[in-house]
């Protein structure tokens, strides 16, 4: 069954007298276990699509089904509950609560759980943080953590409710290239465990780690195809791990579609231009 199915979705923003179409009839189906990149330049409509998929915004027309639920019919409160139960968000700017410990940040979605079950919120939060490799940073506040660690906390927060879909909006946008690869490795690991992941990005490097790429332009889907040769972030990390600068410089700059079986390390100043 599809986790996401949208049919002919449009979104029109009004600004004064003008009507600005952001989406002009988008169809998309995402199955469980996929790892999908939505690409597009700014203004392409990918953020609007992301907001609609994240149940933060409603389409002007068209149908949206999330995990079998017809989202169009839901009230504001039901949307909030749906976000709580079925979606996990990861943002570019991490969006952690400042001056709040990692544990309490991860605990947050559990506090808004309305299913009525008895949850040991602390234990579940600690467990989620261990999953992302921060078991020893539970009491650190965001300002005491590196960017990569903060993003890991955000991922733990997104995962703690065991959502049907992880939505990541430019998750590596604020990270240096090595940390970006680390985060992508984490996403790939989670995906291997069966978690459906949707990443919005404008970086070809990042989308290369996904299984499928959807490109949006001018409110329409321009391209929707599987990634022929998917890169493994874990392998990229190995080669990044032992980089005497001289040795790294010996390698030629890598093309953007590396072959999976011949690990091609990035140039020292790798990452998107």
């Amino acid at each position: 069954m599809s986790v996401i199915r949208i049919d002919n979705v449009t979104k029109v923003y009004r600004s004064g007298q003008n009507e600005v179409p952001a989406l002009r009839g988008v169809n998309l189906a995402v199955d469980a276990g996929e790892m999908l990149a939505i690409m597009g330049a700014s203004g392409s409509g990918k953020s609007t699509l992301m907001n609609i998929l994240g149940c933060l915004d409603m389409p002007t027309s068209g149908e949206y089904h999330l995990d079998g639920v017809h989202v169009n019919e839901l009230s504001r409160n039901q949307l909030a509950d749906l976000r709580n139960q079925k979606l996990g968000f990861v943002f570019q700017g991490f969006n952690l609560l400042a001056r709040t410990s990692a544990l309490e940040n991860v605990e947050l979605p559990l506090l808004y759980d309305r299913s009525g079950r008895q949850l040991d919120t602390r234990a579940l939060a600690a467990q989620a943080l261990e999953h992302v490799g921060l078991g020893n940073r539970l009491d650190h506040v965001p300002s005491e953590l590196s960017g990569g660690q903060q993003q890991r906390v955000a991922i733990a927060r997104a995962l703690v409710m065991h959502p049907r879909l992880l939505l990541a909006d430019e998750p590596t946008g604020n990270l240096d290239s090595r940390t970006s690869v680390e985060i992508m490795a984490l996403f790939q690991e989670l995906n291997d465990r069966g978690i459906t992941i949707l990443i919005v990005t404008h970086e070809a490097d990042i989308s290369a780690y996904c299984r499928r790429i959807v490109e949006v332009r001018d409110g329409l889907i321009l391209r929707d195809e599987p990634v022929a040769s998917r890169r493994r972030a874990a392998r990229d990390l190995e080669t990044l791990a032992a980089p005497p600068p001289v040795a790294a410089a010996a390698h030629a700059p890598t093309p953007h579609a590396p072959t999976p079986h011949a690990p091609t390390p990035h140039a020292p100043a790798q990452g998107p231009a």
Partner: protein
Amino acid sequence: MKRSTLVRIAVQSILKNKMRTLLTMLGIVIGVAAVIVMVAVGQGAQSRIEEQINNLGTNLVVVTPGSSQAGGVSQGAGTFNRLTVEDAEKLEREGTLFAAVSPVIVSRAQVIGGQGNWRTMINGVSTEYFSIRDWQAADGSLFSEADLRGMRKVVLLGHTVAASLFPDGDAVGQQVQIRSVPFKVAGVLSAKGQTASGSDQDDVVVVPYTTARSRLSGFARVQMILASTYSPADIAAAQEEVRSLIRESHRLGDDDDDDFTVRNQSDLAEAASGTTRVMSWLLAAIASISLLVGGIGIMNIMLVSVTERTREIGIRMAIGARGADVLTQFLVESVVISVLGGLIGLALGFGGAALLGHITGWSTETPPQAVLIAVGFSAAVGVFFGFYPARQAASLDPIQALRYE
């Protein structure tokens, strides 16, 4: 979300801004403290008055001269005094409901004797006066029926008078002169303290009214007649009886108005506490204005806080907070601030009232309900002034809120 969690989140976010929270609270702190101090002072005065009215005697009925009319123009209370000793004697003779009756003839005069002289109030009364007013001799003895009938020149000194004329405490048996008439000091009365209005009840000398009338010039009129009934239930009937007897004695026709006034103890208490009640209300009004100002302060800070934490609100909404959750969070925050302020104000108020009582010597009384009132009011202020900012927060659009810089 669980209630304990809500309170925990509120307390956490309050503690993240300690200085600001403290300043925000200040309005409520001052407001509640002011209310408590005002109530304490008001209550203290009130119960002092009640105590003094009770001190006046039990089951008391007081007759005072009424107003006279000159050609239809009322001259006001006491302008024409027709109360006489005979009225009092008639009450004593013919009244059926009275345990005791005494006229009170009042004058001021210089009392000479002992260490010097002292200007004071001279009260001419009957022996029953002491039982009505529940007044005993601290030293020596009260005068007797025989003294009264014999118009003997005996005097009882009030505590203050005795202390100034005979500081050595040897007043009993000595001689004093009132208007050049020598009197023998029969006893010294026990101390009664001040009245509600601050006059000294012990600055007085008491003589038999017969003596006052016959031996001291200028004693003609009866200032008031005091009577006491056997039981409190008789007071209303006794007032009626007094009225008809004195009307008879004054030979008033059916069409004539009373030329005297009959009041009971609770009338007196009412009159006396009226002033303090007005004062209390006035002070309470001022105090509640400061509560109002405190509440506006809270609203202001909560609005700032909502703007400042727009992103946080967006995050919370994205991960599943409903509008009601956000509303409750901010409402709980403002209530916690105001109740905390209320509790601090309560402590300050109690302390302030005690200190004020200590410094000024006023009696202050902090009633236990004040705790409830203070906490209740401050919580109400928190809800009232926190609601608008909380609703602003709850109605934010999650997308806008997440993008807010």
